[in-house]
């Protein structure tokens, strides 16, 4: 279980995160909704170990990982851009995290990458370079590469933000399926209300450096600040 306790962060005197605390059960997804510049990325980067918090701690299965280097946390951070390594093929990208693990044999690495490509329906793209892939295909490779790193926690920072509406919808469905099959624990950050609802099992709303947690949709609906009730009213009016 992930437990984040009293995380605070200042940037040049501006308090970006104020005593953020929440916990997340294994195999669950926490959707964090919030406006741009609200501190969502900062929070994810602190959990990944890419930024240092001013105060507070992060516990994973009761072990404090706050001071650990990013490579030792087993937390993969996925950016809005797929960030596939341009000098490698799709195969090279998938094999990348496996090759960092020196204990695996060449055959094992090859087999695992091919199995993942098969599962993500990109087996026919293995010898292509990232520049030759569509947005959706790139994101699939991105997910595959992240999963092959065997993370305990996956942090997704608006990963579908750059996709068109149709591809975005299909990627959301695709990710939910992969998440279920691989039993992934993840934090999904977005500014899109609908996406937050689709992707999460639990929900959070981050504003002015503070997080509000909701364990159900009904709870989220009650809080006017989330805008969920307004959204529902809008669609009802449109229907009626």
């Amino acid at each position, binding site marked *: 279980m992930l437990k984040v306790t009293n995380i605070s962060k200042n940037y040049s005197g501006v308090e970006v995160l104020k005593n953020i605390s929440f916990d997340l059960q294994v195999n669950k997804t926490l959707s964090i909704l919030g406006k741009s510049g609200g501190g969502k990325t900062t929070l994810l980067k602190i959990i990944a170990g*890419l930024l240092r918090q001013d105060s507070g701690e992060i516990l994973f299965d009761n072990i404090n990982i706050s001071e650990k280097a990013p490579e030792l946390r087993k937390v993969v951070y996925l950016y809005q851009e797929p960030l596939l390594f341009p*000098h490698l093929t799709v195969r090279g990208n998938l094999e990348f995290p496996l090759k960092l693990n020196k204990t695996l044999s060449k055959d094992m690495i090859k087999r695992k990458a091919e199995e993942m490509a098969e599962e993500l329906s990109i087996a026919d793209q293995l010898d292509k370079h990232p*520049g030759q892939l569509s947005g959706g295909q790139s994101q699939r490779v991105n997910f595959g590469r992240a999963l092959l790193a065997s993370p305990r926690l996956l942090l997704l920072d608006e990963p579908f933000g750059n996709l068109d509406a149709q591809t975005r919808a299909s990627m959301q469905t695709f990710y939910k399926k992969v998440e279920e099959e691989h039993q992934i624990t993840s934090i999904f950050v977005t500014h899109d209300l609908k996406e937050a609802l689709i992707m999460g099992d639990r929900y959070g709303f981050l504003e002015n450096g503070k997080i509000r947690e909701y364990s159900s949709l009904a709870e989220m609906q009650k809080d006017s600040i989330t805008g969920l009730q307004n959204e529902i009213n809008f669609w009802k009016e449109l229907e009626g």
Partner: protein
Amino acid sequence: MKVEFRNVSKVLIYSVIVFPIIWIFIFSLFTNWAFPSIFGFGEFNINIWERLLDSESLLLSGLLLSLIISLITAILSVSLGFATSEVIYKSRYKNTLLLSAYFPYVLSPVVLALLLQVYFVKAGLSGSLIGVIVALFMIVYPYSVLFFVGYWNENLINMKQLVRTLGGNKFSAWTKVVIPVSKPVISLCFFQCFIIAWFEFGLTNLLGVGKVKTLPVQIYMYIQEANPYYAAVASCLMIAPPLFLLFINRRWMSESIKFSPLR
């Protein structure tokens, strides 16, 4: 008509670039030019080229010295410049730091050499190979920093961080991603740093106090001695490595940029 004009202009441009090189090469094959012959080259003589292979040849030692100095300067400047430029790119004092990198160029390398001369003499670096390398580094390194600062971008920084979360350490982030991804830019910068160090004369001459006889120093020496044939051979040697690097760079870069989405 348009195509013809383009072809003619191409021929003209190539002639302007290639003609002096061919002319100098032809000139290097002759000796004993006598006034007032303008187009006559004198007698055909490849003695200077033959003497080049002589173990005591000043030209050969000058060529090797220039190669060593330029390669060391370029390698040091590119590797340190690449790492420094990332720090500067991310720094809140980016503009101030960049301004200081322009210092040697605003001042001009020769003036910089004059300012540094006293310190080089005191440090025992004046007239030594290491002294010349240090001096060249002081102008090539800022160039490398200025070159790379414009290259760093958020995608590259994020890629570096991504490697860390995928399980790689700082070293593998550099060696497995940042450097391979940046190969075309690094090689281009290496080429330019090499060229700056290779053709540097004023600074080398001042701080080398005539003891470090690189090729440019020798060319000036031959011209001062009114020895145009030796100067022509030295010039041919001077042009050869940059032309070779340009050829490799052009072919290699067009290949490696093809698949790079960072372009």
